[in-house]
């Protein structure tokens, strides 16, 4: 695990890292079919070249305030367990290479919602980047339990 690449995405000014190994595509302006009765973080379903992709709004998933309606979001498609998911973020940025030694453990005082999905923290020059564990990000059951 020495040296992995992460795509940087922005959410409400905070930078997060998505493992490049799982990224399949970056989209914009997709027509999304809402799914009634689903978890609040699920934005709906979209058609990516004949494959059905489940879209998850990361602001809602991470307990951040809703996006300014005028701002157009971006979608980054990741694969997890053979299924495709589109993560809705504010913006998609560069790719950074991260070595195991440069990582910091997840701080204990981090928001529990974030801590549950964070793999580690990477201190970039501009600020701290929260590296996301996709499997944990898409495991919405614990959050449901916490909510109830």
């Amino acid at each position, binding site marked *: 695990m020495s040296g992995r690449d992460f795509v940087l995405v922005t959410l409400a000014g905070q930078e997060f890292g998505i493992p490049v190994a799982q990224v399949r595509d970056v989209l914009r302006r997709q027509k999304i*079919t809402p799914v009634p*009765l689903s978890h609040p973080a699920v934005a709906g379903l979209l058609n990516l070249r004949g494959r059905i992709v489940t879209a998850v709004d990361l602001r809602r998933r991470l307990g951040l305030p809703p996006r300014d309606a005028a701002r157009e979001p971006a979608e980054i498609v990741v694969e997890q367990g053979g299924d495709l998911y589109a993560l809705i973020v504010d913006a998609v940025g560069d790719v950074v290479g991260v070595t195991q030694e440069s990582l910091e453990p997840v701080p204990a005082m981090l928001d529990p919602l974030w801590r549950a999905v964070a793999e580690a923290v990477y201190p970039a020059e501009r600020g701290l980047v929260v590296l996301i564990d996709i499997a944990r990000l898409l495991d919405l059951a614990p959050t449901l339990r916490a909510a109830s």
Partner: protein
Amino acid sequence: MDELLRDFIAETTEHLTVLDRDLVAIEQSPEDRGLIGDAFRTVHSIKGTCGFLGLKRLETLLHAAETLLGKIRDGVLPAGPAIGMLLGACDRAKTIVTALASEGHEPDGADGDIVARLELSARAGTAMPGAEAPRAPEPATGGPAASEPATPPLGAAGSIRVNLDTIDRLMAEVSELVLTRNQLMQMLRDRTDGEAMLALQRLSHVTSDLQESVMQTRMQPIGQAWAKLPRMMRDLGRELGKKIELKLEGSETELDRQVLELIKDPFTHLIRNAADHGIETPAERRRAGKTEAGTVTLAARQEGSAIVITLADDGHGIDARQIRASLRRGDFATEAELRAMSEQQLQQFVFHPGFTTAAQVTSVSGRGVGLDVVRSNVEKLGGTVELASTPGRGTRFTIKIPLTLAIVPALLLDCVGQRFAIPQTAVAELIRAGADHPIEWIHDAPVLRLRGNLLPLVALRDVLGFGTPAGERETLIAVLGYGMQRFGVMIDDVDDAEEIVVKSLSPLLRGIKLFAGSTILGDGSVVLILDPGALAAAVGTVESVEPPRAAPPLRHNAVPRSGGWLLFRAGADTPKALPLAAILRIEEVAPRQIEWIESQPVMLYRGATLPLHSFGILDHAPGKQCVVVVEQSGKTGGFLVDEIIDTVDETPVLDRTLARPGVLGVAMMGGRMTEILDIADGAAAGKGDAKSSRSAA
């Protein structure tokens, strides 16, 4: 593993299954020379390849079986006594082939026991050549073994073996192609560009043909799934000490292999069930004046885009009395409910999960074990199971399943601006509610009267959690059938019919029972597919047989079968009915005579306080009212009435799905849908008042 060996294993597995079936058939008709010839040739052919591949153990075993079969074929030995031994050899061969498949070589071990017995029997034949065993009038289909060429392997006659994964992948790709074609057609619908349209049309035709051809490759005769049944039935019969004949009809009927795979287990289950619990012992059958051997008939036929499979036995059928007794014991239904149920309704309980797993119920007939699983498996395929049973005569299961699962015709429904797909097999009809078919309300539950039946309704927007209530009286209703259930789903509009490819939902959404999957439409948009079973559950009719938690007073009350009923109106529009037998008298009462004890309206009656059931009438400045005074078990109570309609002498057929505290259920009386009130609730009046006043407002 070596390609040659892999082919051999696949082929031999099939051959041994066929051999199994033939041997059982020979046992039943030992004079069938053709069958014996077939069995001989099958064994000979496998043995030949064994020698070629150097599979010594299998070769020795099959050689012994072949020798014995040869004697039978030549009429030297009778078939009957040898079959058990030959089946044993067949089983051993299967074990060896299974090990061969997993390990790549023959497993260690010896078959001396079986081989010795086979050889001994065969020698017994030579010891008395030409004994009484009748000689075949003409030689069996082939010549003697030595000169006979082995049956050509399946691959020789213009066919090849293709991995199933390859075909599945091909099917998935063709499905995508069909969708893309649909999408293209939609995009170019309004174009008048002649040449492009011509090309598109050609593409469209080729795509349809291709789809059909690929689908054809996935089709298999249902007989393949049935191949193991004769053997199973034979063993079951021996084990249970019963004589059972298995008849297979329509085994050439073709079915998508995926569907075939999915119905295999449910059918095995049903057949075991029929043998175990349907067919009686020979002694019982003699006593009942039947033939000693019971018959189980499995028949398949195609009906449009569905396959209908029936499984019938001529056993003792399902005894309604026994079901009643076990329901009573199992606390599934009240006396009143039991009395109101028809035989047919009672029989349906065998599909109820709780019913079948209850230990004390299995001892009654055992006839229900796991039938809930059978039904849910079939319904998962978009199919239906129906049951008809005549006590003493037998039971018949009718199973209807779609030909293929890959592409299903669906109806697109509109609800609050969003489209949803529903499999067309589930939709019986579409009805516009309005003047001709008004939606009526019983308490908070909407119903539709349809050809004399009450159709419970559910609003799709409620089920989907859209919340906005359907206030308007005019709405479109999709009448759905799910198992024995019929119900209506209120929708905004019907959009279109389209063929769809069902795609499963991601794990994130799998918890939502309402959706069976999603699909991409011709216009590229994604829609969710509604699960008819989940909708049925939302209506509440599916679990209507559960203990009536909502209406505890029910338990102590029976619906009088006849003896006259008083029909009246109170509060809401729906007429209400009370049994005349329970009515003491009808009193006229002025508003000032009614008093309140906390939230309970009461009146003075013969020097005592009479609690009143007011149906919310008292909320709207009433004038003079009638009070129906009833008595039960020494307690009296009153029902406030707006208007007496009539008295009728009818036996109500009670629909309990709309029961609630104070109301036993709903029935057609005097030509109108009527609520049958619970007399006992008169004494404990006021319980349901808050609710009934809301619905009356």
